[in-house]
């Protein structure tokens, strides 16, 4: 087991690999923060989040990586709005400022492919592609785990849409076959995503 400092630095580098811009001074802050509050999940998680993450939109990717990297069993972020990366696509996410506005070509309440995409092309999708490209089996397993847990909450019609998109994504990176091999006998490929 590596010393904790090293793990935190490595974790920060990992965040960078996923496109989150983490500066040196932020890492220094994170180390100081952890030394101040200790390692209880309820303290450790916010200590890293509040120092390393500067954009709210990066919180869900942080959450996914955190769980994998620090082997956390809890599925719920202590900060509620960190968001579940596989949240129900029916729940559009409310936002006072956006309410009442409908994008051209969309009708409210209907999950169009465009909306679907905006949901899926977010962090879990990014994680997926990265994980595949880098042969990151820990990550794949984690994503699969999350997906299975979340499969119940998704409306059948959306499920179909989601599957379709994931399929396209897989094909675009030439991965369809590899997935079957990876998960053969472990999980049915269908259950791996959604």
């Amino acid at each position: 087991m590596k010393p904790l400092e090293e793990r935190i630095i490595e974790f920060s580098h990992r965040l960078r690999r996923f496109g989150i811009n983490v500066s040196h001074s932020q890492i220094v802050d994170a180390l100081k923060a952890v030394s101040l509050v200790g390692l209880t999940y309820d303290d450790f998680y916010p200590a890293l989040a509040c120092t390393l993450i500067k954009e709210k939109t990066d919180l869900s990717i942080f959450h996914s990586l955190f769980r994998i990297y620090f082997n956390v069993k809890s599925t719920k972020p202590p900060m509620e709005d960190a968001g579940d990366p596989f949240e129900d696509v029916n729940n559009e996410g409310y936002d006072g400022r956006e309410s009442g506005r409908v994008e051209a070509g969309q009708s409210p309440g209907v999950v169009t492919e465009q909306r679907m995409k905006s949901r899926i092309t977010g962090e879990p999708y990014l994680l997926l592609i990265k994980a595949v490209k880098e042969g990151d089996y820990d990550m794949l397993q984690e994503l699969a785990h999350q997906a299975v847990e979340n499969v119940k909450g998704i409306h059948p019609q959306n499920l179909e849409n989601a599957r379709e998109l994931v399929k396209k994504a897989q094909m675009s990176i030439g991965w369809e076959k590899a997935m079957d091999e990876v998960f053969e006998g472990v999980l049915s490929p269908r259950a791996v995503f959604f």
Partner: protein
Amino acid sequence: MFSSPEEIRNGFAEHNFIVDRSVSTVVYLAIKLGRPLLVEGPAGVGKTELARVLALTTGRELIRLQCYEGLDESKSLYEWNYQKQLLRIYMDQSQHKSWEEIQQSIYTEEFLLQRPLLKALMAGNESVLLIDEVDKSDEEFESFLLEILSDYQISIPELATIKARHIPMVVLTSNNFREFGDALKRRCIHLYLDYPTSEQELNIVLLKVPGIREDLAQKIVEFVQAIRLIKLKKAPSIAETLNWAEALLELNITELDSEVFKDTAGVLLKYKSDIEQVAAQGPHLS
């Protein structure tokens, strides 16, 4: 001051402000690391309240700077009191003082109008500086703010350079009205406040609306939580939940039904279209 996040949490609770463990941890870290605390989240979740309660809990003075477009240094930092300076010049002239003497006499602290930022720098650890809705200010002001929050010093050319002896506690709030700069964000410790969970909100209602029946409070909270999931022009904030609960208590209402909602919806929702939408799509009321 605070020796643990728990202490902050308890301190806040004494002032009827209930927060999560993770919130108190982040506040604790901002204080210990001597960094500004940037609080983001939807309107009405208690961002400003957090700063106010922090001041109360620590027994400090709350110095508030409300940001808006066009806010500049003279409104936020300091300004010379020209009128008073002019009067002084007339006085000095009548006494036939030299220009040098006049100059010296009018640029003293007596003629300096302190605005929130300067006030906070001078007060040091006696104050909590709240920079409210920082996303509403413009870019020039933002860079200026970054400079102050990095050095905690400002120079008044005619007078002196003023450096805070102690770094004041700084809380910035943002509704994400405008994306603001990376550099400023990097200076800050981040806190995302969201609407409370049902359980937390119920506790808040019971605490702040004494005398309300628990089953009614429970129903109110469930209803409010459900309508926050609907896309409304303005989702009800915690304050509105409390107002509604108080109104129902005042009216001696014990059961929440559609009739009651129709009569009192104006307390909870601020737009007619929102009320109609909730009546149509909201949780079912008998």
